[in-house]
């Protein structure tokens, strides 16, 4: 094989969403040489930051305080959060949001110049920032503002590069390797410090409202490098996501029908089932999922959300008041009439709370490796409140960037890479297009997604089911070496990239399943049918890591540095 081109940098940042870009900006400001890698085109890649709605929170003005914000967060997380980390991050959040504001985010302000803040569910204070214009999402502003900052600051960006693995030398991370999707060439990056900001793994589920590429690639490589993972059993679902017709798949506007147009949930028999569940204290997403699992869902796997009981002129008045809202325009374009038809919806995976265990500097347990954003964990615990995840992503990115730059500055020696490892990883990366015809990635992906949907969902987790799931994941793992891309071209070969995602998907799914199996109780977003109660002895975090060829699991007690459960 030909000699590989090696790109050198102080701080290598993998992933260019909110966390990655903030990290790059801060590391550069500290004087470090930075390289930012994205698997797509900057600002048009599969980062979920661009998909953000209105959720962003920070404690700006008294009587609110970072301490009060931390308390809300910890209580919502059912006391599993790393309290020290939560407080450290929330203290820095306002400053980062002020910077975003300076860079051009259009936050709504009051007459006295302060930010206008709304009261979001789960928060004790008004701390939800709002977009200047009604109905606008913050995601669009992040996309414009952050991409512009990257360009304005002359940050070096490598686009269309799918990182496959981290490089290790003497137990330290010394860079990464991957495929340059445009040319199909193998790329080697050598760095003093590396930051993973690749996001989570919601798209390991059959239905998701995150981005299709959120398959947990970063988590997979961190796992192979020896990183520890915490709270992997907690996956956040969004109740009202469109699944049918396909053009509405993954879109979250049906929630408007539910909450502003008194939309009702109907099963396939046309029966409104919500009240029965509500009386038993079951939450919306769980109720819908239960209804589907018991065979009363639609042919497409969801339930109907209908507002056809509303008079036509009421709907017309609603349209008029809403103005030129994008989703209403789309309904019109598709010819979907809400006064006659119901949207098929289903709770879908929105974000994953688990990820790399990090300390208060966003450092993982692996020397030279930091993690920031959805890939990092310890912040949310067992549940998350509206807007916290965006706040944590921004702040973690910012913190990781600064700390990584400092560490890089202190390093005298230039890191060197292990040629044998590079050669081995190159062979692995090229296997899908050199293997003889074998199993295709689409098939394995849909099988993995079905398994997670069936056994590791927000309802129906049982010991028996989770053990079955581990077995099925193991079966699929045997097929990974046979993965083969029918497309043999090197340039912009998407099937090849999809092949490279599979192994990571299996790893994160197995971590989630094993963590869920370990936690023999129900807490926050983790519901065990066979252990429906929450137990005080489970104020512990489940921690997973690689050991030899297997997965080792331990549980650590939570430290209550800030508040204790009553």
């Amino acid at each position, binding site marked *: 094989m030909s000699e590989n081109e090696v790109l050198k940098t102080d701080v290598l940042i993998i992933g260019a969403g909110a966390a990655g870009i903030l990290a790059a900006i801060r590391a550069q400001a500290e004087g470090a040489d930075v390289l930012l890698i994205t698997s797509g085109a900057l600002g*048009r890649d599969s*980062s979920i930051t661009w998909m953000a709605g209105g959720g962003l929170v920070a404690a700006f003005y008294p009587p609110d305080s970072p301490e009060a914000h931390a308390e809300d967060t910890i209580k919502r997380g059912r006391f599993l959060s790393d309290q020290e980390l939560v407080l450290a991050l929330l203290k820095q959040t306002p400053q980062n949001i002020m910077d975003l504001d300076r860079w051009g985010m259009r936050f709504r302000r009051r007459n006295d110049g302060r930010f206008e803040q709304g009261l979001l569910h789960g928060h004790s204070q008004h701390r939800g920032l709002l977009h200047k214009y009604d109905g606008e999402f913050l995601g669009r502003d992040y996309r*414009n503002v952050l991409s512009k900052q990257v360009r304005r600051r002359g940050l070096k960006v490598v686009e269309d590069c799918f990182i496959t693995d981290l490089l290790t030398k003497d137990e330290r991370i010394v860079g990464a390797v991957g495929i340059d999707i445009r040319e199909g060439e193998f790329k080697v990056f050598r760095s003093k410090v590396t930051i993973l900001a690749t996001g989570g793994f919601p798209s390991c589920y059959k239905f998701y409202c995150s981005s299709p590429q959120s398959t947990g690639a970063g988590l997979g490589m961190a796992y192979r490098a020896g990183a520890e993972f915490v709270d992997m059993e907690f996956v956040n679902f969004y109740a009202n996501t469109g699944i049918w017709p396909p*053009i509405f798949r993954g879109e979250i506007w049906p929630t408007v029908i539910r909450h502003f147009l008194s939309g009702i949930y109907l099963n396939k028999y046309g029966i409104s089932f919500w009240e029965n569940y509500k009386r038993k204290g079951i939450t919306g997403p769980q109720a819908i999922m239960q209804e589907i699992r018991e065979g009363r869902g639609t042919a497409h796997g969801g339930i109907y959300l209908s507002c056809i009981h509303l008079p036509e002129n009421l709907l017309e008045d609603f349209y008029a008041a809403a103005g030129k809202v994008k989703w209403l325009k*789309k309904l019109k*374009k598709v010819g979907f009439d809400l006064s006659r038809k119901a949207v098929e919806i289903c709770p879908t995976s929105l974000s994953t709370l688990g990820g790399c265990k990090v300390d208060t500097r966003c450092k993982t347990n692996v020397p030279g490796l930091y993690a920031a954003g959805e890939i990092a964990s310890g912040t949310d615990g067992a549940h998350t409140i509206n807007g916290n995840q965006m706040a944590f992503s921004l702040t973690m990115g910012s913190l990781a960037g600064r700390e990584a730059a400092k560490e890089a500055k202190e390093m005298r020696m230039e890191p060197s890479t292990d040629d044998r490892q590079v050669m081995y990883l190159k062979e692995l990366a090229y296997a899908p297009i050199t293997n003889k015809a074998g199993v295709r990635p689409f098939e394995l992906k849909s099988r993995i997604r079905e398994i997670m949907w069936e056994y590791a969902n927000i309802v129906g987790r049982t010991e028996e089911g989770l053990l079955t799931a581990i077995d099925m994941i193991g079966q699929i793992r045997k097929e990974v070496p046979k993965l083969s891309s029918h497309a043999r071209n090197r340039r912009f*070969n998407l099937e090849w990239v999809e092949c490279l995602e599979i192994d990571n998907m299996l790893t994160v799914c197995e971590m989630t399943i094993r963590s869920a199996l370990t936690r023999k109780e129900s807490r926050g977003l983790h519901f065990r049918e066979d252990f429906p109660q929450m137990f005080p002895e489970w104020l512990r975090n489940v921690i997973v890591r690689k050991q030899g060829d297997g997965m080792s699991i331990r549980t650590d007690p939570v430290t209550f540095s800030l508040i204790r459960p009553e």
Partner: protein
Amino acid sequence: METAIVEIFRFDPKVDKGPRYDTYELPYEEGRSVLDVIKYIYEHYDSTLSFRYGCSVGTCYGCLLKVNGEAVVGCQQPAGKRMKISPLPRQKIIKDLAVDFNSRGDILKKEVIPNERAG
């Protein structure tokens, strides 16, 4: 079953002498987006097809392309029964429908899609 006939622009500047359009015939299903159709073709007929996509819910604008001469966001545009799909004009073509958004300076300054309110 109704069928849809879709012509897609194919060009690998490193290999091909010039661009061509490949025609695909697939089952037509109401309620699919242009991106759904492109993905269907990619998964079922020809995975050498190169295209860009991200969020798939109309926020990242990664799947900007031209359908029957009109610039659209692929995941937000209902698919028709007859479509001619081409890459975004005036951009450097990497392969097929995938373009280099940076090839003509800062693309964000001249967003093809007019500013519209998200919802």
